[in-house]
């Protein structure tokens, strides 16, 4: 009895700890997007947008802390897509918010953005269907399919709140969580014809 409890103790104690694992190996076909962790539960949109913007810019365009503080200083809610869109628009980054699908259809298909155009895309997911308070932003960086025209088998996501960081969700799970979040996707790109996006105040170069 004593031995059994002692053997279980480390597991019980460790259950509440979260081990952070770096994204060392990206699966084939996945975009190598730098991971940004969310500082708290309400910070996942900020972290996701920073991941996407830094990848699209090809540099450390902005940090999550900086983006959050600038949004707050501007009186905007860092969790609202509309506020995020308008703030980015002022910095020559266009973020589109639309309901999409898991296909390669142009331009509403997630596959078109990720597989065909090479953009990581922020998607709104929800594990508590019907409760918008639990919406959560993740970044889709890859779609696992056997061929160019094949249906997706799984989706690779960078989850700003996950201890694993990079997760592979099978198609059904992703469609369920994404559908519960309204199938909202937020692709962002440099506003065409406007030159280099303006740096946020005090952002790292």
């Amino acid at each position, binding site marked *: 009895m*004593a031995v*059994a409890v002692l053997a279980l103790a480390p597991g019980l104690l460790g259950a509440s700890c979260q081990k952070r694992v770096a994204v060392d190996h990206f699966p084939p076909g996945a975009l190598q997007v730098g991971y940004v962790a969310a500082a708290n539960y309400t910070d996942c949109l900020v972290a996701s947008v920073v991941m996407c913007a830094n990848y699209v810019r090809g540099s450390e365009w902005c940090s999550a802390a900086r983006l959050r503080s600038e949004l707050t200083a501007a009186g905007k809610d860092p969790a609202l897509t*509309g506020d995020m869109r308008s703030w980015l628009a002022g910095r020559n980054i266009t973020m589109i*918010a639309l309901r999409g699908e898991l296909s390669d259809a142009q331009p509403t298909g997630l596959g078109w953005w990720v597989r065909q155009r090479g953009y990581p895309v922020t998607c709104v997911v929800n594990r508590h269907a019907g409760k918008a308070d639990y919406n959560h932003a993740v970044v889709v960086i890859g779609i696992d399919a056997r061929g160019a025209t094949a249906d997706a088998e799984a989706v690779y996501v960078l989850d700003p709140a996950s201890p694993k960081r990079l997760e592979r969700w099978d198609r059904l799970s992703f469609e369920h969580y994404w559908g519960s979040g309204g199938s909202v996707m937020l692709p962002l790109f440099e506003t065409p014809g406007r030159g280099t996006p303006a740096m946020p105040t005090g952002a790292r170069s």
Partner: protein
Amino acid sequence: MRTMAIGLVLVVVLGMVTSQAAAEAPQPAAAKPAEAKVSPPARPLPITVEQADALEEIAESPPHAVPEDTRAAYSPEADRFTTELSVRAVQIGIPGTILGILIAAAPL
């Protein structure tokens, strides 16, 4: 000695026969190679002005439109509830584990 020599010869002959049979056996058809996975562009392909305008238009049309006030993160209320739950779990879990160890380790 003689028995050993016969045994050795038998082993060699058997080995040769089986290896030849294996070589002549019909090989299973090679598995059809999986279609190569799609590799996205190394860098994001630029979006043109026309594409951006078309995207804005599609994003504003009813089937694809998303309300401006769509929340893409936990609300502060959900955050508070989740934090309280995790704090309670830790508060209960650690003393509970220690108590269990002490009870189990106590002399009967």
